[in-house]
């Protein structure tokens, strides 16, 4: 395998792994703000035990996110030196701004949140949960700014073979930044909520610490429903933006080979790039034109507008997107059903639903990975859309064998990290609430 492919595999692996933990922390951080404000209002031992438990789970997840985040920051230089030289004037700034504005905030106040239960005033302790959540959410903004510039570059000019910044706000808030940011944050809220929901469901299934598990169950169920709707609507906004600014990606996502008016929306099918057709297609006539341009008769650009050499790999763009949409619909139905069952507290004892919630923990993680694959593979063969090709972006001074070694190092150490995280979270779950008082909330009588 050549250095380009190895570097791509390594980057995809390390970023994909990081993108499991970072979104959970963004979602959990806001749920913890709610739990901390409950504790601040009631001051009860129960609410304290709940918040305390979730702060510990958060800290474990955060630690993996930080450790794997350092790798991402190094890799632009280690593996993509030509890219770094080309875009550094623009791309480095959001990464530095992330460190300056978010990382210090997040890591300092996480230590305060973790260790401040007794040595701080409740008010300062509560505020630190807000600061952690703000830091995590702001950090996501800088990263999406950087990545969106690769998708829809703006606010730059090319001087002497390098992209040079001409307008900071235009570059930062390029056409895809905001839809992608809100789509990602909504997905992170969804992922964090379903994580909390599944773990709470486990306690309810075991009939252990039920008073301790119900408030986070209800809270995360409600947020799952809201977030799953937000993901869908903002996802639509994002798709409209892609139709305008990255038509080739939209065509690949939808398997649209020919430019046409009244373009159909593909519900199912298997695209065949060689014959330029979609097998077993199930279509909604005019659906794509309507979704992309709000007009069922609008013309949608097909793959025929782009030379086949510049198409993204079709299966890796088409299938991840459609699977993601299927999962997105599942999340809405699943959480909507749960909210209906919440009346009279039926859901707390409805074992099939609790099992479903537990087994669904990995699904948002899969959906978020699929979305990321669609976004990144759909941009190929470009590393910066229509400005620089991925193959031209690598570090020429690094031999392929060294990349192979590093890839193996990352695979082994990340596996260790994952096992450590899984066992540590499992141990906290088995240990349950830490308190010296019996936890009887008002819900127990219900």
């Amino acid at each position, binding site marked *: 395998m050549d250095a380009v492919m190895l570097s791509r595999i390594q980057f995809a692996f390390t970023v994909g792994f990081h993108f499991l933990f970072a979104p959970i922390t963004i979602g959990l951080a806001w749920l913890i703000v709610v739990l901390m404000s409950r504790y601040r209002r009631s001051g009860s031992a129960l609410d304290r035990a709940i918040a305390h438990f979730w702060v510990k789970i958060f800290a474990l997840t955060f630690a993996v996110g*930080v450790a794997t985040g350092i790798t991402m920051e190094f890799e632009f230089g280690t593996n993509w030196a030509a890219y770094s030289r080309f875009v550094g004037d623009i791309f480095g700034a959001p*990464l530095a701004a992330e460190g300056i504005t978010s990382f210090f905030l997040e890591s300092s106040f996480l230590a305060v949140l973790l260790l401040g239960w007794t040595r701080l005033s409740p008010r300062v302790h509560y505020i630190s949960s807000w600061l952690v959540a703000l830091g995590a959410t702001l950090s996501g903004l800088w990263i999406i700014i950087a990545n969106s510039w690769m998708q829809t570059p703006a606010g730059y000019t090319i001087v002497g073979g390098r992209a040079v910044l001409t307008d900071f706000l235009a570059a930062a808030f390029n056409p895809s930044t905001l839809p992608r940011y809100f789509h990602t944050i909504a997905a992170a809220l969804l992922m964090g909520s379903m994580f909390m929901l599944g773990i709470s469901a486990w306690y309810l299934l075991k009939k252990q610490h039920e008073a301790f598990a119900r408030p986070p169950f209800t809270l995360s169920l409600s947020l799952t429903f809201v977030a799953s709707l937000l993901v869908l609507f903002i996802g639509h906004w994002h798709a409209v933006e892609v139709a305008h600014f990255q038509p080739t990606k939209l065509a690949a996502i939808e398997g649209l080979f020919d430019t046409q008016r009244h373009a159909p929306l593909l519900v199912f099918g298997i695209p065949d790039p060689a014959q330029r057709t979609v097998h077993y297609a199930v279509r909604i006539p005019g659906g794509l034109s309507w979704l992309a341009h709000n007009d069922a008769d609008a013309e949608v650009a097909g793959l025929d507008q782009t030379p086949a050499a510049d198409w993204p790999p079709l299966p890796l763009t088409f299938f991840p997107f459609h699977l993601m949409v299927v999962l997105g619909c599942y999340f809405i139905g699943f959480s909507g059903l749960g909210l209906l069952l919440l009346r009279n507290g039926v859901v707390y004892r409805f074992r099939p639903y609790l099992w479903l919630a537990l087994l669904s923990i990995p699904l948002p993680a899969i959906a978020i990975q699929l979305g990321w694959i669609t976004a990144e593979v759909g941009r190929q063969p470009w590393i910066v859309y229509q400005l620089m090709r991925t193959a031209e972006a690598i570090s020429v001074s690094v031999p392929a064998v060294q990349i192979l070694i590093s890839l193996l190092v990352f695979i082994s150490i990340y596996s260790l990290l994952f096992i450590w995280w899984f066992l540590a979270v499992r141990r906290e779950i088995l240990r349950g609430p830490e308190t010296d008082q019996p936890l009887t909330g008002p819900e127990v009588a219900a």
Partner: protein
Amino acid sequence: MIVLQHSWLVILWIFFIGYLVLDGFDLGAGFWHLLTRGEEERRMILNAIGPFWDGNEVWLITGGASLFAAFPPVYATIFSGFYLALIVLLAGFMFRAIAIELRGKEPSPRIRGYWDIAFAVGSIVITLLLGVAWGNILRGLPLDQVGNNTGSFFDLLNPYSLLIGVFGIALLATHGALWIALKTSGDLPAKARRWAGSAWIGTLLLALSAILVTPAAAPHLLTNYMVHPLLWLLPALTALALLLIKVYSAQQRDLAAFLASVCAIGGFIISSVTALYPRMVPADNPQFSLTLSNASSSFLTLKVMLIIVIIGLPFIVGYTVFTHRLFAARVTADQFHY
């Protein structure tokens, strides 16, 4: 433009020196961790770094990202040029983090012993790699006109760079021991002062050897000092700070000794950055050297980022002071209650 480039040189080194003096104490504490025998002392050392070590690494992350933003060619050259070393560095950071987390929760003393070794070895490897990397930058790299390092991995392991690496270990060993003396209680502070004393002698001897071999190994580093003799004040002040470590430590003034060590670390870095100036990465062929003027980002990028730093840096200093005040007391061997 010249003002902006110099501002960024200063900001960059604020982050890196901040990293070295902060993460330096927990890396250094990691070396000594292995020399203690009892569980109680090990627990105390971990508690002394517990609330800080994860946050300390943020200084390196931000320093690295600032290098990318302000001097992209330098970032690209160094990170791709030191490829395998940086991968080992990353693995060291992660392995060390896992070791710190796991040893605290491990009931079996035997397995806990293995994690202790991993923690210490991780700390030593990280320090050695950072020192060797800095030694190579000081010495100069065989760069081509694009800035690619044409040397091999084994070229990085030259005697001069290894000397700087070992010097870095001695320096941070002193620093870590002083932190232990400052933050722990019982018999440990007295023991840590003795450790600091022996590591201090090592630091002194290695610093002298590095200075003595520099005219032969990296003569270009002396040019600035020859042209502007006043600059010798910088190494002189560094030597003074080094001396004060010994004086204060002997008087059991632990905070003063630790701060003197902070100044000494800062002094060594500032003296060597001054020796490089205006180069950032010297190349064997001087035409290809990366300098402050040929390797910086554009005026607009430097300006926008400077505004962000001017707003952000006071907050960063504020958070750091806040957490250090919150955990200012000397620690005992009790487990921190998370």
